[in-house]
């Protein structure tokens, strides 16, 4: 049915009032008594709703608001805790980095000290070894010299004994005695 049909047909179904005018129902507004009764019924229902369902609705809304607020607070607390934890983690990370740097620096210092100590000890040992070696060389040289001198002295002594005792014949003995007597007699 077209729009024109919708308008024309009610006119065709209109009633005739006392004046003979065609009277039709408004396509938009209901009948006045219907409006009045309908309005009253709506007010009563609304009032009943306000009276009986209002507190429950208000309570439910308040509970919902409270639950949402709780959830918001929990989320905020969780966010704060997460932020604190994040701060702690960042701080721990920073501490770890600092500790690592400190340990590395300490290890470097120890390594340097150990190296320097080792070098110093090595230098000292080398110096000691050199000194000992020089002393041993000198001692060996001295010993060899002493042994050589002792051997020469021993051979010389043996040679002296051999030569002197071999040459002490009777004439020499007498000569020695006479020489002694002459020297002692001349001395005063």
């Amino acid at each position: 049915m077209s729009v024109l049909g919708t308008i024309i047909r009610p006119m065709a179904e209109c009633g005739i009032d006392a004046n003979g005018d065609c009277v039709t129902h408004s396509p938009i507004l209901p009948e006045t008594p219907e409006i009045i009764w309908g309005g009253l019924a709506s007010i009563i229902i609304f009032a009943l709703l306000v009276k009986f369902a209002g507190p429950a609705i208000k309570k439910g809304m308040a509970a919902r608001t409270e639950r949402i607020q709780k959830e918001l607070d929990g989320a905020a607390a969780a966010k704060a805790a997460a932020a604190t934890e994040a701060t702690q983690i960042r701080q721990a990370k920073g501490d770890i980095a600092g500790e690592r740097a400190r340990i590395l620096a300490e290890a470097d210092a120890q390594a340097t000290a150990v190296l320097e100590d080792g070098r110093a000890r090595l230098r000292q040992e080398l110096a000691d070894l050199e000194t000992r070696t020089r002393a041993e060389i000198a001692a060996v040289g001295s010993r060899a010299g002493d042994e050589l001198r002792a051997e020469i002295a021993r051979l010389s002594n043996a040679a002296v004994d051999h030569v002197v005792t071999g040459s002490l014949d009777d004439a020499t003995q007498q000569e020695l005695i006479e020489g002694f007597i002459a020297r002692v007699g001349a001395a005063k």
Partner: protein
Amino acid sequence: MSDNRIDGYARALFEIARAEGTIDEVEDELFRFARSYESSDELRNALTDEQIPAAKRQAIVEDLLGGKATSTTTQLVSMVVGAGRGRELPAIIDRLVARASSAKNLELAEVRTAVPLTSDQETRLAAALANATGKQVNLKVVVDPAVLGGVVATIGDTVIDGSVRTRIDQLKSRL
């Protein structure tokens, strides 16, 4: 043995020898015997061994000296050894010789040589030592091969060393 005891023995031996009128000979023989005693370990051991009876030790002395020394010398040594004083024999004899020299106003001069001296050499050496020390000396000659050659004279604390041994020792020490 104490000095007093050694002195006592020396004085006794000296008086006996002087009483016998053989002090010069006895002194000389005792001196030689003391030097032999010092240089011979065997003799020293035989005369000081307590295990050997005194009579046997005296017999050893008499065997050694009999016919070579005067009887006075033999008997004096035998007496000392028999009394168990063999160990002190050199000290007793040295004291006796010193006493005898002192009695004659002489200074004891012990002379060591490698070979024996002739009497002429002894006389001239005594005169030379007297000249050198300003004292008359009682010369006692000991033949000691260790001297090797020359003479070592000891007068009191003075030693005049003209021995080959000493010269060799000096040469060796320089070497």
